[in-house]
């Protein structure tokens, strides 16, 4: 499964990407909305984009609209450090796509699978012991 990970916190992106890669996901990391658009415009294909809601420049919600235009099949999951970013008005189904920071990696993996209807697909490590965290 190809994931586009967008967050302005570089170290966080790096760590999360490595953990996802360990779990068999193919992750592309970018740090701004502009970069993300650029990557997709250049023809890269992603199953799902994991977006930080609050970013300098183009925020997660706006970026989603732009990306959706470029690739109608792309799914979206949001990360938020701001509890208030989750919009109660979006309904239960949509609300499930908002994951609060700090997040549990298993929750993210579950949501990603649910959203795309796919498993990681890549060759991951055996992290069964970690399941418990």
């Amino acid at each position, binding site marked *: 499964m190809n994931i586009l990970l967008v967050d302005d916190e570089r*170290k966080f992106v790096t760590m999360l990407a490595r953990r996802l890669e360990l779990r068999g996901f193919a992750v592309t990391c970018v740090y701004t909305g502009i970069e993300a658009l650029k990557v997709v415009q250049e023809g890269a294909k992603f199953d799902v984009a994991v977006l930080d809601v609050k970013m300098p420049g183009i925020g997660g919600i706006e970026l989603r609209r732009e990306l959706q235009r470029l690739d109608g099949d792309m799914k979206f999951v949001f990360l938020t450090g*701001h509890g208030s970013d*989750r919009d109660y008005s979006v309904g239960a189904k949509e609300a499930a796509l908002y994951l609060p920071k*700090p997040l549990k*990696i298993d929750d993210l993996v579950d949501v990603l699978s649910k959203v795309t209807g796919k498993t990681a697909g890549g060759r991951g490590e055996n992290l069964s*012991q970690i399941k418990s965290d």
Partner: protein
Amino acid sequence: MDKLKANLKSLYPHFHRQSDEHLNPYYTFQDYRQIWGVGIFFLMATALMPLIAMTLICYQLVNQSIDTESLLRAERLASNSRRAVTFFLEERLAALTFTVNEMGYERLTDPSRLEEVLRNLKLGFGGLTDLSVIDDSGTQVAYAGPFNLEGKDYSRQPWFIECQRHNACVSEIFSGYRDVPHIVVAVKSMQPEGRFFVLRATLETERLIQTLSSYKTGEHTDIFLTNREGVMQTPSRFYEGKLNRLTIPLPTYSDHTEALIASDPQGQPIVMGYAFIDTKIAPTSFVLMVVKKKAGMMKVWLDLRSNINWLLIVSAVVIALVVFLTSSFMVNKMFDADREKARTMVAAEQNCQLASIGQLAAGVAHEINNPLALINETAGYVKDLFTIKEQYRDDPELIEHIDSIIETVERCGTITRQLLGFSRRFDVQIQPINLEKMVSDVINFHKKEAEYRDIAIHVDIPATVPLIETDRGKLQQIILNLVSNAFQATDNGGRLAIRADLNGTEHVRLTIRDNGCGISEEHLNKIFEPFFTTKKEGKGTGLGLSITYGLVKKLHGDITVQSKQGKGTTFVVTLPIHTEKGFNA
């Protein structure tokens, strides 16, 4: 009846019971008792001063008019009686003059003619005792009357000397040879050869005294005659002293009637009218005195004054009562309004505090969440690596430490999430909500716990409670928070009652009552403050109720709490039935 009681209560001062000390700094006025006292003082002063002033002025005026009136009356009485006395004397002098001129010396010295004249005069005027003719040497030459005093020498008598000088005379009242009080009146007449003679008559004083007495008015009035040296000429009821002397000072001479206010020997005020009596024909030494005791005339006024005093006292008491009640009522009202204001201000301040703490909390939470996320991922990655590498995977201590970091981060995350919940700002999605359904949904969450802990849940939401337009998520969270709270406060086997009813036409009231441990009074006004908790450290963040409070406010509602330690707690949430769509909280 209750209304009357409440009204009566509001007339009684209750403002001194400033029991809520935390309200004190918010009162506009600090000392209501002082305001009340000063108010009563000034109102009383304003009402009573004119009344008292008017009364005093009235006293003054009445006193003055009494003085004027009594002086006038004394003077008038003196004037009238003077005229009577003068007329009495003048009439007799005139009769003698007529007789002398008509008869002449020769005929008057004829004893039988003199007797006839006396008889005629007695018939015409009365009061004459005798009649005599005295020649210029002072020797009595003819006499008619009961005493035969022929040949008696009058040349040294003062009235004879007086008569030579003024052609006529009126003597003082004296007893003379016969020891009977009488007045001698005499007129002088010239004979053709140039010698003179005197016709003398003795007058009884009885007639004169009677005349004077007839002018007496009232028991306090005294009318009498003295001579110019203060020797009594007719009897006086009150002012006759030893040796026939007048006991009050004789006024100075005046040629017409006068009146003045003086004091009697006892120091009592008297009104005195007087006249020095002179006839047209001859002067006399009489002084007519009219004396009235002022106290006697004052009696009517004193009675009136006592009535006025009573009226004054009763008016003052009524005014005092009305002023007291009015002041109490006003100051009570003022105090009540002020207390209400103070309460509102305290509540407003608390709201303000909550809001600013919320903003601060949100800011802190935002800033902390990102580093927390980084710690979380880094620790997670390290754990991932350890799990992959065999030499670490079997070291349980390492994994345990990492887990501990992750767990702690999670705890921090919970706190920041709650902090954010406290000040959450997002659009409110208004939709019609069935309160009964929502409550039963929430209770479903707790069904297992209720069964397990044997807690009875009573829900009473009548069908009359309408659908309310509000935000589903927020209302759900409010009810969930309050029900969770109640569960935490209630012991096993306790009871929880949830009731809803209409509050007026615009609001619905949701009451959640438990019979749990209750909240102590000192904690009661802090429970909506963030971070306030009575739970053990680490067990509660103290944000639950402050979040609930914020949510209720966002839904334009109100939340209140009543609690008694050991008896239970009741939360009452009031929510508007209609909320404008698209409003931003």
